[in-house]
């Protein structure tokens, strides 16, 4: 694990307002779902670093990239970097999606796409085409989809029907279950906005699919010292403790480990 200054080498427009922010290496080997804390070295407009999944990585670790969509001051500062300017990168942090699942069904919403590109690459290297269900409001919101086109089987869905399945990813998943492209007993990996993940987890439970979620919690430290990123959990792994730190015990949880609290 490292905390290093990296040079921004390239900003690739992924459409829909999102960018792949590419930095020089060395980027350590990183499992799917693991993340890094990022901040710009200069002119960081906020106090705390921000968590981002590693989007892509050169096979030898000579470069890495992060998928960033500007939604606030931190993400905007990262996307405003000029080539040659520096980023402080700390990681890899957190637990990966389980590595013993062959051919998972990946479901992404928005920037929740980020953890799946490296997985698609490793599946492709093993001779498999990863199934990716990718949902967004409209065609424009499916930022990064082209990167998956050749190496995986992409099933897009849009709320307005402007591309692919007309409706939410849960509707799409249901349709794929009916068509046989997805079968009962398979495993789903999901990352996206909370309401989407909740709906996917719910559907997986009803249809007999195993489901793992990667949470995008608000974090301060990212390395387990602030106790700020906790979620309510249950189950064996937590030995009766009601809370779990998403930065070290997550961000990936099996859906059945999470306790949903309506109050917040």
């Amino acid at each position, binding site marked *: *694990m*490292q*905390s290093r200054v990296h040079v921004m080498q390239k900003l690739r427009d992924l459409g829909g307002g999102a960018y792949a922010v590419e930095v020089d290496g060395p980027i350590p080997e990183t499992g799917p779902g693991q993340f890094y804390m990022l*901040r710009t070295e200069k002119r960081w407009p*906020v*106090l*705390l*670093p921000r968590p981002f999944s590693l989007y892509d990585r050169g096979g030898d670790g000579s470069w890495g990239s992060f998928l960033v969509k500007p939604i606030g001051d931190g993400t905007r500062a990262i996307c405003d970097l000029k080539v040659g300017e520096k980023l*402080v990168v*700390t990681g890899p942090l957190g637990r990966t999606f389980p590595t013993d699942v062959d051919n998972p069904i990946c479901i992404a919403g928005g920037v929740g796409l980020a953890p799946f590109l490296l997985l698609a690459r490793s599946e492709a290297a093993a001779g498999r085409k990863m199934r990716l269900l990718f949902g967004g409001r409209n065609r424009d919101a499916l930022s990064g989809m082209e990167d998956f086109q050749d190496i995986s089987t992409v099933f897009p869905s849009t709320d307005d029907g402007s591309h692919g399945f007309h409706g939410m990813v849960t509707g799409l998943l249901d349709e794929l279950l009916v068509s046989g492209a997805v079968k009962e007993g398979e495993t789903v990996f999901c990352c996206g906005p909370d309401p989407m993940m909740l709906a996917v987890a719910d559907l997986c439970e009803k249809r007999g699919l195993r489901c793992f979620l990667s949470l995008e919690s*608000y974090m*301060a*430290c*990212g*390395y*387990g*010292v*602030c*106790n*700020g*990123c*906790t*979620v*309510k959990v249950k189950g064996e792994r937590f030995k009766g*403790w*009601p*809370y779990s730190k998403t930065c*070290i015990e997550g961000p990936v949880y099996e859906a059945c480990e999470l306790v949903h*609290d309506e*109050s*917040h």
Partner: protein
Amino acid sequence: MTVLETNLAGLELDNPVLSASGTFGSGWEGRQFSDLSTVGGLVSKTVTLKPRPGNPPPRILETPSGMLNAIGLENKGSEVFLRDSLPRMQELAESGQKDGKRGPRVIVNLGGSTAELVELTKRFCAAGVDALEINLSCPNVAHGTRSSTDPALTEEVIAAVKSVATVPVFAKLTPNITDVVPIAVAAHRGGADAVTLINTLVGMAVDWRRKKPVLGNTTGGLSGPAIKPVALRIVYQVRAALPDLPIVAVGGAHSAECVLEFVCAGASAVQFGTSLFSDPTLMVRVVNDLRDHLGEADTSIHELRSAMHESAARISTPGGASR
């Protein structure tokens, strides 16, 4: 004394750079980023006798130049801490005990009722800690701050802890009171070997769209650079009133310059909290930067301590009512 060495009520430190309670785990989590054997000391998160699950999320929110937290003293209790975390802190300390260095001092922060604090003090002194910091001031638990807004209670709690302690005891005080000086006086009277100033300032954040507070606990403690001026002011006032009571400063420190400012204002050591979230390697760099700054100015921590008070005494007396 070397330029960096400092002394807290008889506890000698290689340098004045410490971690702040609740912001660096037990130090173990940070060792993966840098070699912590050169920091002056590590302060644990508040340990309570029994496990405490803490407050419901959301627990943190960034604010301009700071953050709010309402963790609620989540910890697995003293038994688990003694078994799992203390040995790791002590291992880090040992890693620095070479070439005539003392290594990071192991300071455990304790919270709870008077009876619980007495029990905890016995257990942790027996386990060989270097000092204890008593958290009289957590803003995020029911009645948490009461003991450090009431002078009589402060004195009683500290006296009870001191009656069984075999290591130096620091009283960590709250800034959420009009005047901290009477509380510091009470802690001193109770026998505190030093005071840690300050814990977080109570604040809150509102989500107007949902017409709800943002934090699960409604209010939270403000920390980070935003509170540094408040911490400096309180350190300065307490030092002016109690020149013989060593002070551990905490609140918004983020550089070697900050350490020197706190030392000038009267602190003997300085803790780093929120700034460690953005940079787990910060303390090690600050120790090196301190050496450079002191070298350039041809002075030492010892010489600089309270320097401002000596010059102030010649010019005017510090503000505040007479006591």
